[in-house]
């Protein structure tokens, strides 16, 4: 089973059956008809939503994280603290490993 990395802002799924589509909508996803893309609108049931997407794609799914400092997207697999993380693979803000260990002062870029 391979790992599929999705960007929570916009991702495309193969044709989704009616039941699964309804389920995804109930779980807090949003569908853009014009572009044919899904995005996550509500994070309350994010774990169930990820499981459903995994079932649809038949592969493990991970979402990209967005770096608070450089605003780039990166996967959780790049992070060495996942064992301590309660929200791993969930698409929230974080700090990428490059910014974390970099010399750039957080004073100027963060907060």
């Amino acid at each position, binding site marked *: 089973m391979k790992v599929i990395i999705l960007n929570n802002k916009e991702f495309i799924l193969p044709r989704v059956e009616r039941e699964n589509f309804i389920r995804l909508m109930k779980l807090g996803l949003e569908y853009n008809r014009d572009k044919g893309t899904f995005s996550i609108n509500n994070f309350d049931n994010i774990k169930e939503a990820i499981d459903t997407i995994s079932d649809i794609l038949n592969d493990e799914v991970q979402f990209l994280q967005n770096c608070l400092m450089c605003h780039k997207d990166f996967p959780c697999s790049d992070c060495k*603290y996942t064992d301590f993380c309660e929200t791993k693979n969930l698409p929230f803000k974080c700090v990428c490993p490059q910014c974390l260990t970099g010399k750039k002062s*957080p004073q100027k870029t963060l907060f």
Partner: protein
Amino acid sequence: MKTNLLWVEKYRPKKISDVVGNELAKTELINWLQSKRHKKKGVLLYGPAGVGKTALVNAASNQFNFSIIEMNASDTRTEKAINKIGKPATSFIALDTFSSERRGNILFLDEVDGVFGRQDRGGIKAIINIIKESLIPVVMAANDVDQQKLRPLKKVCQMIRFQQIRIPLIITTLRKICVAENIQAEFEALERIAQNSLGDMRSAINDLQSIGEGKQFLKLQDTAFLTVRNKDVGMYDTLKGMFSSETIGDSAMVLNRSNVNYDDFLLSFSDNLPLRYRNPTDLATAYDLVSRADMFRGRVGTDNWHLLRYFFNFLAEAATVSPKSYKSFDLIYPPMRIMKLFWTKGKRTNLENICAKISLRCHVSQNTAKTDMIPYIKMMIKKQKSSSIISWLKLEPNDVDFLLKLNDL
């Protein structure tokens, strides 16, 4: 200029964007505060300590020009006390609402899960009444919302969940503080503090202040004296952690950090020993140590907690009889004894009903009926299905079938 302020106060977020992590919770609270018609009149922020619940409320009120009326655990929160402060605050709209700068008041009740006992009698009921009648936003915060007493409160509140802060976010915040305090900190030192905090930003900042204040350099060795924090480690992780430990010390530490019920843990631990040790000699040694641990668990009771270390040590020793032989295995959990009781509940209830009928007829206790009479009645029924004893004991056909199929429970 050196100030005596705690760094958690000094660097308390002033704006919502300063609150680190939990963006989802932030968005939900902002939306709730900004909307004029709330589906639910109160909002309950919940999650572990030090993740920014109080900080977010303070920052949001700052940003949206609300004045906070706060009651926390240090106040007496009886029905009378809450009504005295909460009722006037929530029943009248403040005059400054009409000025362009202020938007009115927020009633903030911190640590509502701590409202309990005789000293806070009627507190939750008063809070619910205030929420129902309030004209101003009522925000509450709690660590543990699974308590029975908070159920009615949860029904009238919008629940907003906070999660632990991610380690990279904690490290970045600590770096920011170090820059502001002119401390040159090693990355590894900040990493250690962040990992030790277990996602609790407040404790991470307190730890940084305790070892870094007044210093120019902060090195990894300075963090050696940090106390290890207890994390809510569940049964599964405790079992796995203990069995995979290489030394007795490591194994004991895993148990020490866990929040398991020791009696249930002892049962589960015993269930898993045959899977952990394939060698009969190791298994026998482990069981011997578990029996000693059990003995000390009994001695601990509810008073002699100083003996708990012996319980920990014997179990840790049992988990590390032959550390090198460890191979990952599927843990049995919950305890088999508890599961067996669960599975046989229906059967036991049937048996108890039959015993009740026998005890009534034969003037014996239910226990005597179960141990001394049931085996003979079963034999009699087996020999002759239409035995007169059935009608004399007023047993139903279901009871007869049950007795015929009955094995030892």
